[in-house]
C-alpha cells in the first residue's frame, strides 16, 4: 500500500495552495484598491456634476426630472437623508430643496383643510405652493410634489396622492376614502362640486338609502362637503368643497 501525500510532491502541493492564496489575496487587494479608486472618481465626478448643475436642478423642472430618473436607474436615492448615504443629498442640497417643498405642501394642505376637508386637487396645490414660493422659487411640477410627499412619509402624517376619476388629488387627512366616497368625489368633479341624491340614483344605480348615507357621512362626519338647502331643483344639494372653485 502506498500512502499518498507523503514526500516532496505533497510538500509542493501545500506550497502551491499557499501561493495561490497569496496570489488571490493580492488580486482582491488590488481589486478593492481599484474599486476604491473608481468610487473616488465617481464621487469626484458627482461632486463636479452637482456643483455645476445644482442650481439648474433646483430651478429647472425638466432637468430635475431627468436627474431623478437617472438616479433611479443607477439605484441611488437622491433624497437619502444624512443618515443613509447622506453625502449625496448634502452634495446636491437637493434634500433640503425637497424638504422645503414638503413643508410648503404641508402648509397649503393644512391651511386649506378647513374648507376642502383635507382633499386638494393637484393643480390647485401646485398653484398655491407656487404662490407661496414666489417667482424666484422656480416652477414646480406634479412630479416634484409626488417626490416631496414621499419624503413626508416617515412623518406618518398620511399624505397621499389619490386618483379620483382620472384626476390626481392630494389627501392630507388620515382617512380611507371608501368606494362610495370616491364615486361621489368623481361625480362632483364633473359638476362643479354639486351632488344630489338623485344623481347617484340615476347615474350610478344606487339605492336612495345608500346615496343618502354616503352623502350625509361626507357632510356630517368627514366635513368633505357643504350643504345647500336652497337648491332650486332638489331643495337639498351637497357641494364637495375640493371640487369647487373659490378663493378664501
Amino acid at each position, binding site marked *: 500500500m502506498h500512502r499518498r501525500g507523503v514526500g516532496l510532491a505533497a510538500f509542493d502541493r501545500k506550497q502551491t495552495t499557499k501561493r495561490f492564496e497569496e496570489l488571490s489575496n493580492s488580486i482582491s487587494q488590488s481589486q478593492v484598491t481599484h474599486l476604491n479608486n473608481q468610487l473616488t472618481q465617481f464621487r469626484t465626478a458627482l461632486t463636479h456634476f452637482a456643483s455645476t448643475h445644482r442650481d439648474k436642478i433646483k430651478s429647472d423642472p425638466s432637468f430635475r426630472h431627468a436627474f431623478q430618473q437617472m438616479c433611479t436607474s443607477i439605484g441611488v436615492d437622491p433624497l437619502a437623508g444624512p443618515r443613509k448615504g447622506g453625502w449625496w443629498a448634502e452634495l446636491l442640497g437637493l434634500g433640503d430643496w425637497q424638504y422645503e417643498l414638503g413643508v410648503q405642501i404641508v402648509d397649503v394642505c393644512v391651511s386649506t383643510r378647513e374648507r376642502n376637508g383635507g382633499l386638494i386637487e393637484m393643480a390647485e396645490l401646485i398653484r398655491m405652493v407656487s404662490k407661496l414660493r414666489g417667482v424666484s422659487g422656480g416652477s414646480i411640477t406634479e412630479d416634484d410634489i409626488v417626490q416631496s410627499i414621499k419624503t413626508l412619509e416617515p412623518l406618518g402624517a398620511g399624505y397621499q396622492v389619490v386618483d379620483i376619476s382620472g384626476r390626481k388629488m392630494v389627501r392630507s387627512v388620515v382617512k380611507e376614502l371608501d368606494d362610495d366616497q370616491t364615486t361621489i368625489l368623481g361625480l362632483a368633479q364633473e359638476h362643479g362640486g*354639486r351632488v344630489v341624491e338623485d344623481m347617484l340614483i340615476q347615474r350610478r344605480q344606487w339605492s336612495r338609502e345608500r346615496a343618502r348615507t354616503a352623502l350625509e357621512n361626507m357632510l356630517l362626519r368627514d366635513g368633505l362637503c357643504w*350643504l*345647500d338647502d*336652497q*337648491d332650486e331643483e332638489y331643495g337639498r344639494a351637497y*357641494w364637495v368643497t375640493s371640487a369647487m*372653485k373659490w*378663493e*378664501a
Partner: protein
Amino acid sequence: MALSTHTTSTGWDSVLKACNKVNEHILGFLLPSIHSAPPFFTQQPNPATEAIVIEQWTKLILSYARHRNLFYLRVEDAETGGDWDEVLRNDRINRRLPPAHLSSILAGMVAKNVASYEPAKQTRSVLLYWRLPEEWAEVLHQWASTTGQMNTIMTFYEITDPPVNSPLTNIPLPLLRKAITILAKSNRAQIIAIADGEGVRFFTPAK
C-alpha cells in the same frame, strides 16, 4: 380688516373714503368669490364647517360695513331688504341668507368682540366694530387734535355732524360714548354735562 388707525391721519382717511366712494360708483363693492357659492348661504349642520362659514361671513360683513360706512346690522335686514341686500342675497345664483342664519352669525360676531348687541338685552340688532372702540378712541382724539378742538367743550352733535365731513360723521352715539370712555381712562377726555345733554372736553396727554 386693516387696522391702520394709529397711523391714519384725518387727511388720509378722507382720501381713502373718497377713493372708496369713487370705487363704489365705478366698481361697486368687490364681493369675494365665496359669495357665489350656493352653500355659503346655508347654515351648516357640521359645527366645524359652520365655524368656517361664520368666519367668512364676519369678514365679508365687516369689510362691506367699512366700505359703505354702515354701523348697524339687524336680523330684519335679511327679511325686508335695504342697505345690506347686495351682501345678504345673491340674485345671480338665487340665494339669500335666511334670518335665522344671520342671527347665528351675529351671535358669532358678538362672541368674537367684533360686534355688540345694541341696544343691550336683545339679539336682533348689532353695532359693528369694523373699527374697535379702542381704535375709534384714537381716531376721535386725533381728529380733535388736528382740528384744534383741544380743551374746548364740544357737544356730541358737533362730533357726529360736523360742518366738514370727518371719519366720525354719523358715528352712533353708543360707539362715540364708548370711545370717549376709553379716552377718559387715560385722561385724554372728560364727559361733561351741558345744558342740552352731554358734551366732551379733550386734553392733550401729559408727556
